[in-house]
């Protein structure tokens, strides 16, 4: 299923854990520094309502005064767990893309504010960079450095799996519980 930005709450509520989706439209990158900055009361110039935040620190190179994305896979999302629910609410996000999954606080935030967590394939920086059709702009580059800056990207059919939905479902919770149980039997 294709998710076009801005995404409505209705569409988000129709998604469930395990669904394969493709994001098309505008996504903004934001990772460790951005989350702490927002938590500390900072404000970003971009309007992300109905939008998608991507946990990603891309490799960007300037070619003929235009930014070109050389690699852009997801970074581990768990580090943003203390801040994510609050950031979803503040920015009015409908989806967060990352890898490795997030915890209970974010899951509750997804349920309350109508948001999903989309898992991109970690390490697949070329396949995912190929889906980035244009780098539209960047903010916080000077303050945070290139990997931590907020890059505004135009993406087409960016593939992800819904691993946390807006109904309290989490694939990460399921897999952890099952694997724990399996290990207990094998010890």
């Amino acid at each position, binding site marked *: 299923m294709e998710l076009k930005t801005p995404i409505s709450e209705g569409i988000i509520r129709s998604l469930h854990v395990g669904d394969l989706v493709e994001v098309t439209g505008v996504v903004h990158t934001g990772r460790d520094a951005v989350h702490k900055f927002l938590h500390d009361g900072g404000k970003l110039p971009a309007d992300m309502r109905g939008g998608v935040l991507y946990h990603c*620190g891309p490799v960007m190179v300037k070619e003929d005064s235009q930014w070109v994305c050389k690699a852009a896979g997801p970074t581990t999302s768990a580090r943003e767990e203390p801040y994510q629910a609050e950031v979803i609410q503040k920015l009015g996000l409908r989806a967060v893309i990352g890898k490795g999954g997030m915890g209970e606080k974010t899951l509750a935030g997804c349920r309350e504010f109508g948001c999903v967590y989309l898992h991109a394939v*970690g*390490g697949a920086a070329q396949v995912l960079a190929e889906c980035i059709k244009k780098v539209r702009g960047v903010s916080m580059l000077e303050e945070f450095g290139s990997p931590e800056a907020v890059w505004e990207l135009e993406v087409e059919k960016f593939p992800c799996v819904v691993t946390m939905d807006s109904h309290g479902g989490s694939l990460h919770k399921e897999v952890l519980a099952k694997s724990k149980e399996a290990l207990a039997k094998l010890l």
Partner: protein
Amino acid sequence: MTGLNDNLLELIRRTSAEIPDDVQRVLVEALKAEEKRTNAEFALKTIHANIEMAARKSQPICQDTGSILFFVHAPVGYDQLAFEEAARTAVAEATKKGFLRQNSVDSLTGKNSGNNLGPGTPTFHFTQSCSATEMDVRLMLKGGGCENVGAQYSLPDQRIGADRDLKGCRRAILDAVLQAQGKGCGPGVLGVCIGGDRATSYAFSKEQLLRTLDDRNSNPELDALEQEIVATSNKLGIGPMGFGGKTTLLGCKICAVNRLPASYFVSVSYMCWAFRRQGVVLSADGGKIEKWLY
């Protein structure tokens, strides 16, 4: 740029863009084994497409080009400082070209140095020997996601019921796999060291990742443990990316070094599927690549 600089730049480029053959072979097997039309299969197919694309475009397999770890074995009397200087030049150049991400951040100010150079980055592990006539230079680029799920256990560890014996080591290693779930970009490879102090134990565990995946341990007990850890981990159902599935680990390499009577560390370094390691044998002056090692 001198010949050595150029050769190191090429080593960095290939390490960042190309998966070693031994890892590629195991990933192919993993894809065959996974159930069709599952999210696990989707992850592995994406991984394969990515490997092909990175090599073709000569661009980083993963955007996190990681900690830059050089392992150098040189003839006795080799000028290590000159090597470090050449490597730093090559690293800065590789960053400019986009083979490496700007990945070196001042821990106090948060400022990115922009060229991967700074206190502690990159790192060098030198050894010298009288018999060496050429230089053996290996490079590992280890991303932060997998580095963050590395773990060190001090045995006995009551939480996981691990005593000071191989059974306890097994419990510690499997606990590390369980805790990592998909966060280290699995299916991964473990480098493990039993013994040492806190610092050397981790360092030796990383050196285990220089072994090819088909390399067998010369110690029968450790060899058996390596095989068993992989087999057991692949029964846990964590799967590629933690999506659930059959392949959780691609390999496990274990060494044991001596320890203090008071200490018993088990250190686990996790390497993601995007296993970036490459190596070259260079002529003694570093000017010529004699052969590629992986």
